[in-house]
């Protein structure tokens, strides 16, 4: 865990950055148009960044690629992706993923070594 100072700096910086992003174009006077190129770039930001956050949690163990039937996080993540794809309900996705995590962990533990 990081130190207390890191935590406070992160909090203050995140608050400032997030507010400025929200205010950004609302600060402009009405007659200034929105640049089209910026819009095109911004479109791909959420899917890219969000994926970059969850993918390592599924695919890596101790910073090393771990694709195996014994990786219960990967299997549970795939179940969650399927549930999210089919039903698009956040709470169902999380519940299914957590249930699958425990199920696969129990199955792996019961396997002969």
């Amino acid at each position, binding site marked *: 865990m990081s130190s207390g100072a890191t935590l406070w700096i992160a909090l203050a*910086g*995140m608050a400032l950055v997030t507010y400025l992003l929200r205010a950004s174009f*609302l600060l402009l006077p009405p007659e200034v148009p929105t640049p089209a190129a910026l819009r095109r770039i911004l479109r791909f*930001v959420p899917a890219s960044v969000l994926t970059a956050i969850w993918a390592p949690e599924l695919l890596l163990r101790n910073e090393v690629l771990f694709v195996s039937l014994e990786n219960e996080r990967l299997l549970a993540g795939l179940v969650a992706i399927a549930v*999210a794809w089919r039903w698009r309900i*956040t709470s169902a996705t999380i519940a299914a993923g957590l249930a699958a995590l425990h199920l696969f962990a129990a199955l792996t533990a019961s396997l002969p070594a």
Partner: protein
Amino acid sequence: MPLHRPAIAAGARASLPVLLGVVPFGLITGVAMVASGIPPAIAVLMSLFVFAGASMVAAAQLLAHGTPAALVILAALFINLRFMMYSASIRTHLAHLPLGWRLAASYLHTDNVYGLSLARFAEHPEDPHKLEYFLGAGLLIWATWQAAVLAGALIGAGVPAAWRLEFAAPLAFIAMTVPLLRDRAMVGAALAAAATVVATSGLPLRLNLVAAAAAGIVAGMLLERRGR
């Protein structure tokens, strides 16, 4: 500027179904942050000042891995860049307002408020009370969210580690990502980001996150151009 109360009420009413999603996500955010090692009081403060769930859960995860503050802030910047997109889009409807109101509306501008307001403004482009509708939806969603995060942070401190609730954080991100993958370009962006973040995981300071974001944007734009 006097506010038109019926329009505030209409905004609040329209946000009621959305609260069904706000409550569980707020709870999960509170639980996941505390499970990652953020003290409950800081989690609640962060919710008040940052007020953006995905970036808060990510920050908690990154801080747990010992990421420096500057990179945690950079990650929040990337995750919350979509608010810039919302701001660019909603300004057609709110740009004429006095600066004070635009600053207040900015603080309340979340994914849900954007979705509700844009739908309403598209249907009633000449509505003179757009600000009130936005504020009505925004305030009720804000209050509900804060209560849910507070409850989650309090519950989170008492959850046994064996329940592995910290895995709720990546699951919440999966739930947010999958509905975005509506076309080939968007799927390509996500796949490029996933491959890059894993391939560059040896980079110091979690810089692989920045590399992955860049790769995702480039892949998405290339696929989009080819698709035309």
